[in-house]
């Protein structure tokens, strides 16, 4: 496994917003089929790191690679736009607030990308939408508008929308934080299912129990650095670093 080239390779990532250094020399390798959880206090840079991977917030320094392709290549604007749109098709992202398109039905939320970007016919895309919705258990909602769905359903549609692009990697930024507690489980189940299917995933989460149960590796971030990383049994049961211990004490008891 370690001899293989990493799927996602973040090298010496740095990011500042003005004078504020949000990421400081972050390194992260994710291999194919691996599931990495990122935990850490609010403001530690977790979202920023995730958003850097698909260039929503481009890095100020360092490199990000997806297999053999550098994601954050310096290119002239027009070429860059083409390059990044291509890259993003390979990286699915799920947000805390779903970001479904409210003016489109569930069906069209899902088929938009495949028809516009992959040249899929309407019929093929419809079939794909049906498959993806069945996968997240929402077949009967295909012609609803997002405003007619619960938060948990919205998030499952958002996951189906991302999966319809057949991404190589899925990024989750606190996918369940905006949900009512009783709706968290249905989304977690979908993510667990993806894990069983060996989807490569990077999951930012505040849910320690969930992270422990699905991921292969945990990163604890604080103030823009990776303080500690390792397998979940080690990080959650026997963390070495004092900051990790303090953070977990608060979160596991809270």
């Amino acid at each position, binding site marked *: 496994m370690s001899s293989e080239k990493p799927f996602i390779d973040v090298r010496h990532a740095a990011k500042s917003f003005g004078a504020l250094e949000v990421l400081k020399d972050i390194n992260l390798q994710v291999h194919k089929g691996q599931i990495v959880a990122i935990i850490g206090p609010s403001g530690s840079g977790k979202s920023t790191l995730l958003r850097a991977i698909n260039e929503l917030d481009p890095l100020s320094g360092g490199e990000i690679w997806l297999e053999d392709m550098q994601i954050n290549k310096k290119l002239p604007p027009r070429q860059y*736009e083409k390059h990044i*749109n*291509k890259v*993003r098709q390979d990286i699915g992202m799920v947000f805390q607030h779903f*970001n479904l*398109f409210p003016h489109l039905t569930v069906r069209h939320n899902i088929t*938009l990308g495949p028809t516009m970007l992959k040249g899929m016919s309407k019929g093929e895309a419809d079939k794909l939408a049906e498959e993806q919705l069945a996968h997240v258990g929402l077949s009967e909602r295909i012609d609803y508008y997002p*405003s007619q769905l619960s938060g948990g359903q919205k998030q499952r549609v958002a996951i189906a929308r991302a999966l319809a692009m057949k991404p190589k990697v899925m990024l989750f930024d606190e996918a369940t934080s905006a949900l009512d507690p009783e709706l968290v489980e249905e989304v977690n189940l979908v993510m667990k299912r993806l894990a069983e299917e060996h989807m490569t995933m990077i999951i930012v989460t505040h849910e320690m129990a969930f992270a422990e149960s699905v991921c292969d590796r945990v990163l604890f971030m604080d103030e823009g650095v990776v303080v500690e990383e390792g397998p979940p049994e080690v990080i959650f049961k026997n963390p070495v670093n004092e900051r990790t211990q303090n953070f977990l004490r608060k979160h596991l008891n809270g």
Partner: protein
Amino acid sequence: MGLDFSVVPGFLDSILIGALWTIAITLSSAAISFFGGIFFAVISLYGHWVIRLPFRAFAFLFMGTPLLLQLFLIYFGLIQIGIDLPAFVAGIIGLGLHFAVYNSDIIKAGILAVDKGQHEGARTIGLSKGQTLRKIIVPQAVRNVVPPIGNNMIALLKDSALVSVIGVTELTLSAQLAISQTYRAFEFYVAVAVCYYIINLCLEYSLHLIERRIQISR
């Protein structure tokens, strides 16, 4: 000379034809003002300054001068530089562009009000900036501003009377023509006022239906 509405039915044909012209002018210039408004809004938000600055001057001209003058300019003025437009065409271009400039300000605000997450959601799928605008941002922006755009459409209907001065035989001019034959100003003005009112009601009702339909998709 008392009032005598019995003269009106004799001119019903020409008044109805006038009403049809008014409707045609309103609908065509409403379409121009709507799509033009979107176009101008996108230019003024995202256009290169080479396009944006001339547009700004153009918008300033259309907002800062009387519509009547703009109609004169388009109909009588453009002939001198070889552009000879039929009155109807000059009328809908004038009305359409005038209201497009007003609509563009509203749509611009609508675009800026669309949640940032919508751009991010679209871009993470891999849509380009242009595709994101076209498929995601503008359709939502437009939905958000249906009421104020609707108000502009109603204003447009009323201002369509101005094209009578360049000789389009719409409602107002058809009243004038009837009056010039009968000298019954009050009766015919009231008759066409009723027509405007009815058209207005239909317009408002359609806008209401549109608003209801899009409620679910916002």
